[in-house]
């Protein structure tokens, strides 16, 4: 038994963290909100490609870094911490390894690795986060994985304005696999990527809040010295601290294709989703009125949290765990 990051994983995480601290500050996230600065956002994508990140989960002989899901967790946590306003997780953690695993029939992989092709993932219905920025859309539905170019694009106004969401009409062709195991793996990778980003977003909101309550003074003292504030933040930290190892463990379970991997992903999604949502509420409340403004940066991270947490679907994960635990499927028999 052993459960900590190795030196390579730490080094890569730190490199991503340092790069994003420079290249994806809050101003860049704001630049992704309409009307925005598309050129600045596009430059960030190129920086990420230059680091080789889009090939992170692609084998070395296909031109990638050959990393596994375990290695992706700390990277995606940093992507969440920075609230990168681009489909990084979708492209890096789901689409690229799928293309590599299926022999890339459409010839898309070189463009993905080079940073010239962005892949979004269709959500429920026709809503596609980052659909406005995507060259390709991955559709994981009905036991098939399809990669398609959208037919039509309609912009959608969203709570998190940096999601570049669109309603897309998608062709029905483009199947890259109907292997149920590979399709499930894609779904699990997408969930894992979301859980990891939620951890990072939670950490970002925690850092902002700890910084703020340490300096904001009321009644002649920093508000962070008041127990009412301290205890809420302690609880929020608790959620994040107990979600993190579960997300990392789910990454390991996926990387090793363990028998319990789908359960482990569900555990990770539930814990990370709850922790990040609690953190968002706590952060806004502990900031007070400034946390309720769009001038202050907190909302960038809270809104991304809500979008990602909603995208995972709590009920399906509870149902999956109920089945694994042999509990009746929610309802009196």
């Amino acid at each position, binding site marked *: 038994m052993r459960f900590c990051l190795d030196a390579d994983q730490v080094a890569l995480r730190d490199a991503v963290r340092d790069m994003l601290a420079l290249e994806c500050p809050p101003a860049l996230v704001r630049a992704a909100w309409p009307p925005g600065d598309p050129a600045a956002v596009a430059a960030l994508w190129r920086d990420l490609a230059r680091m080789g990140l889009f090939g992170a989960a692609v084998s070395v002989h296909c031109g990638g870094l050959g990393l596994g899901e375990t290695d992706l967790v700390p990277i995606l946590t940093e992507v969440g911490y920075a609230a990168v306003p681009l489909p990084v997780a979708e492209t890096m953690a789901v689409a690229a390894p799928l293309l590599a695993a299926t022999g890339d029939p459409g010839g898309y992989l070189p463009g993905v690795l080079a940073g010239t092709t962005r892949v979004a993932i269709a959500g429920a219905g026709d809503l596609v986060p980052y659909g406005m920025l995507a060259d390709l859309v991955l559709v994981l539905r009905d036991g098939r994985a399809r990669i398609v170019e959208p037919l039509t694009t309609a912009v959608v106004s969203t709570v998190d304005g940096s999601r570049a969401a669109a309603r897309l009409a998608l062709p029905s062709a483009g199947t890259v696999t109907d292997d149920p195991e590979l399709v499930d793996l894609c779904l699990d990778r997408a969930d894992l990527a979301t859980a990891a980003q939620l951890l990072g977003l939670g950490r970002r909101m925690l850092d902002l809040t700890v910084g703020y309550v340490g300096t904001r003074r009321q009644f002649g*003292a920093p508000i962070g010295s008041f127990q009412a504030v301290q*205890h809420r933040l302690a609880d929020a930290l608790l959620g994040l601290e*107990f979600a993190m190892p579960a997300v990392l463990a789910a990454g390991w379970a996926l990387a090793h294709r363990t028998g319990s991997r789908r359960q482990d992903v569900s555990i990770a999604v539930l814990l990370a989703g709850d922790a990040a949502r609690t953190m968002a509420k706590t952060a806004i409340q502990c900031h007070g009125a400034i946390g309720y403004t769009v001038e202050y940066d907190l909302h960038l991270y809270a809104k991304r949290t809500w979008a990602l947490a909603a995208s995972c679907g709590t009920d399906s994960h509870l149902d999956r765990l109920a089945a694994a635990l042999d509990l009746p499927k929610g309802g009196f028999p």
Partner: protein
Amino acid sequence: MIDLVDTAEEARFRTSARAWLRANVPSPPLPSGDTREGFARHVEWERRLFDARWSVVSWPERYGGRDASLWEWLVFEEEYYAAGAPQRVTQNGIFLLAPTLYEFGTPAQQDHLLPRIAAAEDLWCQGWSEPEAGSDLAAVTSRAVRDDAAGGWRLSGQKTWTTRGAFCTHLFGLFRTDPTAGRHRGLTYFLVPLGAPGVTVRGFGRLDGDEGFAEVTFVDVLVPDEAVLGGVGNGWRVAMSTASSERGLSLRSPGRFLATADRLVALARSRAEALSPRLRDRVIRAWVGAQAYQMFTRHQVSAMLDGAQPGARASLNKLFWSELDIELHETALELLGAEAETDTAWSRGFLFSLAGPIYAGTNEIQRTIVAERVLGLPRAP
């Protein structure tokens, strides 16, 4: 690196622990260890554990252990609770005093006391709280006065809410040796035999009705210099080492909560007619909580093996396991419906779980510790 399966050695250790427990765990279960009769039966069980060298697996062989790694200790704990084995009435000696003895004891103290703790010959209780010093532990007023002529210390004062104090043979506790020093400075950690002249122990009922609490009164009790652990005036530091064990992994490993979670799931399966969608989700989330605790502690053990000290982070463990334990039991009682009021392992477990957010420093104290020492927030006024 990450490898979440047992090594070959850990797997062998697991198999061997499981086999011994399967053959030896008493059935039907022993009566509560917090009653006089049940306590005696539990001490017999502890001696069987010791004779088979399962009482202190992570200790050196010369003290009765197996030199097991921290991982193997976690494995043992998982198997122990999965087997439905009895509560550890020796826990204060094994899991609280012993780690402090390893850190602060003299070689003579270690050689004398540790084998007796392992063998359940000395049965230790914790003497911290006083009528006027609960969460505010540094307010203790029980005192120890140097007696040069007698060559020792004379203890006076009162400790209370002492778990299993009425049945134990020894007490470790904090006494004030320098009333003129600052609150935290003038304290000394003493090891006291409860049979010493001048000690009186009165047991009283806890919330569950068992005589699991005691108040211990000291009137001019003479103890030798060897009764001091960790140096005169150093008691706060020594006590905080014990507190870290009590809050963290040492006292409450994931094994017990994983076992409770599994029993909760089994209960839910057996009561499908009571399992509304809401209750089903509550069962699942409680079970998820136990898995989260296991993952957290595995991560923590890896960090400890790399040299990190849990320190204030033990308060994170304490907050989590204490609230998880209540949630597991409350959920079970909901599943039981009207049967919940009957005296069962679940109702007793529920009453016991309510002590979790109080002992080892209330959860309010733990949240303040987390805020100030883990998050680095400014000190409370």
